[in-house]
């Protein structure tokens, strides 16, 4: 474990399972984010997430090693049935989680009222992309940190961070939402399952792969979303990384299957006043967590020690086996 000084970027890492959480902490995570095993979190995938007992043991494991646990309760509570979401907040508070990551205004209001001592982080799913929006959440609910949506350039992140009083956290690695998070119904249009309500994007229950004369065809619900020849690396079966036809042209209309790798931008993010960087991938295995968290720990230690970044390729871990700096570079738009 590396102690966090006031200037260093906090490394926030994903964990879909207790084993992944232990792996992340052992590999040098300052904080781990994870969720309960139900639709209260935005990675409600089969076989993933934490029971209450697992969460308790995991928080003990983290705290014993000086790491934090942030519990993501970042879907939007179902109308007429707020129970599961409120219980998740109550339990996170009772289990002494270091913060909860929320997106729903109703839940933020509940948490601020019911658990005034509980630290609130604003999820990327809230899509607070301007200083005005972030200030609203700060004033209304006492939010202490905002996870910035992946729509801002580095210069804009610096500007926003300077004009608000809470901390900012930005994504630094992994799967890249092309659309503004928390405002995307593409998956529910094709499958009836909503990322915002059910916590699943491109749910596995609606994904199918079919071999078609040497090609791999991926379908989501009733729609074909991609076709790969045998030599092409593939990506997740999400609509925003699918191939489509238009009268102008055919191909990756929204984005190629690529992943974010912002390691070259870490000095810039630190200079911009960003407090924490986040690695995506609660659906990924221990092998991914170990490789990516170790690499980022090394990069951050190099940054803090004023040494050059020993950037090793993580491309083999990534979707499409290609990396991008995404919206952090303005030309991406």
């Amino acid at each position, binding site marked *: 474990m590396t102690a966090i000084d006031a200037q260093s970027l906090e490394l926030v890492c994903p964990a*879909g*399972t*207790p*084993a*992944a959480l232990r792996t992340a902490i052992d590999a040098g995570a300052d904080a781990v984010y994870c969720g309960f095993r139900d639709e209260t979190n935005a990675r409600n*995938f*089969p*076989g*993933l997430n934490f029971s209450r007992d*697992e969460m308790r043991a995991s928080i003990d494991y983290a705290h014993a090693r000086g790491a934090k646990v942030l519990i993501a309760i970042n879907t939007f509570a179902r109308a007429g049935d707020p129970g599961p979401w409120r219980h998740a907040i109550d339990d996170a508070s009772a289990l002494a989680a270091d913060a909860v990551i929320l997106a729903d205004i109703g839940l933020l209001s509940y948490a601020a009222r019911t658990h005034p001592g509980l630290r609130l982080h604003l999820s990327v799913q809230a899509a607070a992309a301007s200083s005005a929006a972030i200030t609203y959440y700060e004033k209304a609910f006492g939010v202490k940190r905002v996870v910035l949506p992946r729509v801002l350039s580095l210069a804009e992140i610096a500007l926003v961070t300077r004009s608000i009083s809470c901390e900012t956290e930005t994504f630094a690695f992994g799967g890249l939402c092309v659309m503004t998070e928390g405002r995307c119904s593409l998956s529910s249009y094709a499958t009836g399952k909503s990322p915002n309500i059910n916590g699943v994007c491109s*749910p*596995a*229950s609606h*994904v*199918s*792969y*079919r*071999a078609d004369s040497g090609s*791999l065809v991926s379908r989501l619900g009733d729609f074909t979303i991609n076709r*790969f020849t*045998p030599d*092409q*690396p*593939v*990506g*997740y079966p999400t609509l925003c990384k699918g191939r489509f036809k238009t009268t102008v042209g055919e191909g990756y209309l929204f984005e190629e*299957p690529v992943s974010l790798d912002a390691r070259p931008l870490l000095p810039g993010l630190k200079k911009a006043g960003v407090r924490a960087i986040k690695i995506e991938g609660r*659906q*990924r*295995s*221990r*092998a*991914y967590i170990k*490789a990516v968290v170790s690499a980022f720990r090394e990069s951050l230690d190099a940054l803090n020690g004023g040494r050059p970044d020993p950037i090793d390729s993580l491309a*083999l*871990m*990534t*979707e*499409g*086996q290609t990396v991008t700096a995404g919206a952090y570079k303005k030309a991406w738009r």
Partner: protein
Amino acid sequence: MLQRTSQHVLRLPGIVAWVVRPLPLLPLQVALERLLAGILERHPDLVDRLSGFERRRVAICPSDVPVIIVLEPRDGTMILRVERILDGETVAARICGPLFALIGLVDGDYDGDALFFSRDLIVEGDIEAVLALRNAVDNAGVDLFGEALATLGPYAMPFSRAAQSIAHLWTALHTNARHNREAAQ
């Protein structure tokens, strides 16, 4: 534990499939059942994580060994069957890839999504059942090698020595392959 430094997967040479083909399945079935029973005993949360996926059979199909392992979560445990072909077999899903890739997934050395992105792993059918199994196994943190040794009981020592030499050979092969690849780049 075998050291693997990247997601590159070594494939068994064709001779292995040729040698294995005439062997009877029953001893393998018995050995694997024993192995699985040991794993489930030491990792009860594995089956727990598969609740909701009862009776959804997943076929594990090593592409370089002519054997298929069918896993089925049922009645709070896991049923295993070894087959040569999936003739008339109703499985919900299939996971196909080189044997070392499949072992590496269980051991936590490989990332399933990365193997899928690189086309080393092919999944078909009920993707939900595949993901549930993959995630449950990854969380269990199974040490296949250690489990195999534990299963063998008093036979573990000689087997362990044999396995160690295979492991050394494998590592040597792997290092060699990596050097060749790097030289080619």
